[in-house]
C-alpha cells in the first residue's frame, strides 16, 4: 500500500497519508486511522455550529418573511456577514472571552458565520411565495402559524436549503482554522507542519475538500428532493416567459 501511489509524487504521499498510518519523526503515530479523531472533531464542531445557527436563523427568517418586517436586517446581515472575515471573528471571541472553553468560542464564531446565508435565504424565500396562495390560505381561515407551516415554509424550502448548503460548506471550510486557537480539527495537519509533514498537510487538505464537496452534493440532492413539483414546473415556465417578454424583476442576491 505504501508504494502504490508513489508514482504520483507528493500527491501520492498525501493519499498514502490518508489511508495508512505511520510514525512521524518524533515517533508519534499519524495518518491512516489516526485521522479519524480529527475528522470526528471537525464534523462535531460543524454539526454543533450549524445546529445553533439553524435554531436562530430559521425561525427568525420565517417570522420576518411572514410579517414582511425587518427586510433591512434580513438583507443587510448577509452583506455584513460576507465582509467580516472568519479569522477576525474567531480571534474576537478568543480575545474577548479568554476564560471560556475554546470549543465553545469557535462554535459561536462558526454559528455567527452560518447565520447570514440561512437568514437571508429564508426571508427571501418566504417573501417570494405566491401572494395569491397566501391570500387563498388566509381566506380559508388558516392562522398565521398555519400559513407559515403549510404554505410559506414548503414553498420557500428550495431557497432555505440553498442557504443551509452555503453555510455548511462555509463552516466545514472555516473549521479548518480552528487548530490555530486550540480545537484540534482536520486543520491540525495543515498548521502543525512539524508533526505531520508535507504529506499530512496535503492529505488533510484532500479530506477537507472531499468533505466540503460531499456536503455540497448531498445537500443539493436534498434541495432538489424538497423542491415542490409545482415550483420546478413554474421555474421552467417562468424562465421561458421571462426570456420571451423580457420581464426583469429586481433580484435580491441570495446564496446559490
Amino acid at each position, binding site marked *: 500500500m505504501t508504494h502504490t501511489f508513489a508514482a504520483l509524487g507528493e500527491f501520492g504521499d498525501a493519499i498514502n497519508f490518508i489511508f495508512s498510518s505511520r510514525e512521524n519523526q518524533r515517533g508519534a503515530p499519524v495518518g491512516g486511522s489516526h485521522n479519524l479523531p480529527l475528522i470526528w472533531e471537525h464534523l462535531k464542531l460543524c454539526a454543533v455550529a450549524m445546529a445553533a445557527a439553524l435554531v436562530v436563523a430559521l425561525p427568525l427568517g420565517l417570522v420576518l418573511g411572514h410579517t414582511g418586517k425587518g427586510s433591512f436586517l434580513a438583507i443587510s446581515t448577509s452583506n455584513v456577514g*460576507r465582509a467580516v472575515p472568519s*479569522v*477576525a471573528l474567531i480571534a474576537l471571541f478568543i480575545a474577548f472571552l479568554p476564560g471560556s472553553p475554546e470549543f465553545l468560542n469557535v462554535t459561536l464564531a462558526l454559528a455567527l458565520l452560518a447565520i447570514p446565508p440561512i437568514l437571508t435565504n429564508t426571508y427571501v424565500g418566504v417573501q417570494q411565495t405566491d401572494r395569491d396562495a397566501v391570500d387563498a390560505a388566509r381566506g380559508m381561515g388558516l392562522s398565521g402559524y398555519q400559513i407559515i407551516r403549510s404554505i410559506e415554509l414548503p414553498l420557500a424550502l428550495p431557497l432555505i436549503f440553498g442557504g443551509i448548503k452555503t453555510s455548511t460548506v462555509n463552516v466545514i471550510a472555516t473549521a479548518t*482554522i480552528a487548530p490555530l486557537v486550540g480545537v484540534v480539527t482536520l*486543520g491540525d495537519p495543515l498548521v502543525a507542519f512539524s508533526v505531520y509533514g508535507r504529506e499530512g498537510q496535503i492529505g488533510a487538505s484532500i479530506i*477537507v475538500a472531499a468533505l466540503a*464537496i460531499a456536503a*455540497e452534493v448531498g445537500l443539493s440532492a436534498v434541495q432538489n428532493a424538497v423542491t415542490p413539483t409545482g415550483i420546478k414546473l413554474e421555474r421552467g415556465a417562468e424562465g421561458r416567459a*421571462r426570456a420571451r417578454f*423580457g420581464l426583469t424583476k429586481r433580484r435580491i442576491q441570495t446564496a446559490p
Partner: protein
Amino acid sequence: MSLALLAQLKIQDRSSATSSCVESNGFCPQWIADNWERYKTPLIQHIELTLISVAIGFVIAFWLALLAHRRRWLIPPITQFTGILYTIPSVAAFFLLLPLTGRGSTTAVIALVAYTLLIIFRNVTTGLDGVPAEARDAGRGMGLTAHQLLWRVELPLALPEIMAGLRIAVTTTVGLTSLVFLAGAGGLGEAIFSDLQFRSNVVVAGGLCVLLAVVLDLLVLGVQTLLTPWTRAAAR
C-alpha cells in the same frame, strides 16, 4: 482632596497608562496610535492580493460567460466546474497547490481567483439572460451585428447584475485574503494571528479587513453609477 484634583489625577493616570492598558489586555487607543505603522505592510499586501485576484477572476469569468452566451450548451458544464472550485475550501486549496506552485502569493492568487469564478460567471450569465427581447429585436432591426449587439445593447443592460456579482466577489475575496497567511502570503490575517489574545490588535486588524471590504464595495458601486447614467435619469 478636592474633586477637581481627583479628576485631574484620573486624566493623567489614563494618559500615562498605555503600558498598563496593554498589560491588562484592554482596548488601547494610545497603543493603536503608536503602532499604526505595523499594519501598513499587511494592509497593502491585502489590498494588492484582493485586487489582483478579483481582476484576473473577472477577466476569466467574463470571457467564459461571453463564450457560453453564444454556445448555450456550455453553461451547465462551466457552472459545474466553477462550482467545484467554489466549493473547495480555500485553505485546502492553498495546501493542494503546494506541490505545484509552492508557498507564496502565486498560490494565494490562484486559490482566490478560483473562488471568484462562479460568482462572476453566474451573475454575467444571469444579466445577459435578463436583457429584454424587445431591446435585442430593436438592436437587430437597426442593423447591428451580433458583436455590436453584445457590446452596445446586451452588456450595458446586463451591467447592474454584472456589477452586483463583482461586489460580492470583492467582499468575499477580502474575507478570504485574511487566510492567505497560511500559504505564506501575508495580509491582515497574519497581523491578526501575530497576537491573537491582544484585543487592540484583533480589533484593528479585523476592523481594517471590514473597512477595506466596505470601501471596495462602495468603489465598485460608484463605478456602476458612473457606467449606467441612464438608471439615474430613470430614477429622477
